[in-house]
């Protein structure tokens, strides 16, 4: 999946994606960006991800620790708190419900488009 994503849609689910990635394993900011890009979100920029991680930390959904890096300054690793796990479960359920509803509407048959009638 390398096509660009709607920034507004992405903004809405970025927190959920971050929670899921951090639930898989704790990571530092740049690593999270790389993992998002590997997952296909190639147009996600660091400038959006780092503040989003800060917001999760402020909301008590992730906790952080500094780990010395062999290649430079210490890295700030993020991992989920129990509240983060709870938010992930709730967010995943909401997303699943949301996409199911949207898919149900999009799956309905359509009448012929006007240009096809002519």
């Amino acid at each position: 999946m390398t096509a660009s994503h709607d920034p507004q849609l992405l903004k809405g689910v970025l927190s959920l994606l971050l929670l899921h990635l951090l639930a898989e394993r704790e990571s530092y900011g740049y690593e999270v960006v790389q993992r998002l890009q590997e997952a296909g979100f190639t147009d996600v920029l660091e400038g959006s991800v780092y503040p989003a991680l800060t917001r999760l930390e402020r909301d008590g959904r992730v906790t952080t620790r500094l780990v010395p890096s062999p290649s430079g300054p210490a890295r700030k690793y993020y991992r989920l708190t129990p509240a983060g796990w709870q938010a992930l479960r709730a967010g995943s359920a909401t997303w699943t419900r949301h996409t199911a509803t949207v898919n149900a509407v999009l799956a309905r048959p359509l009448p012929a488009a006007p240009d096809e009638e002519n």
Partner: protein
Amino acid sequence: MPHAIGWWDRLRIERLVWLLDQQLYDLPRQSRLATRREVRANLLEAAGDVGATEALRRVGGSRQLAHRYLVAELGEGPRHSLIAAAYVGGLTPLALNFLFDATAAAYHRGVVAADPHATGTFTWQGISHLQDPTTFSFVDGQASQLGGAWTPLTYLLWIVGTIAAGRLWRLARSRAGRRDAVAHAG
């Protein structure tokens, strides 16, 4: 392919970090330092991966990044401004003292102009409501002065002005919101 990070690249990264830092003065000091450290570490790592130019492009401009951090830390909507409060809180006493000194000096010069060898006690009432009277004791044109302190109203105006300029009531609200968010998450 790994990129070597030269001193020029480090300077460019430091410039962005510094510019970002200058725009985060409304955050608590600890949070600002942590942000600075994290952005620098991530940028250095990204620069090693994709080059400093691309790393800086991907992080966006310092203004946009600072705005996002401020929204992340303090929430959407109107915010307080510690910088504005600091400016008004710091500059108001300087400006007022300059004004009071200038008016007292003008009074002093007036007395000396009227009588270069003035002797006696003269009282300058000062700017009404804002300062106490200043008493000049002249001996052959040489004066010593006493008084001219701020009135309680001046202190009150200073404090109210500082709070108003920094919209500091929003600080209490944002802290309460932050506590609520953590309590809600917990």
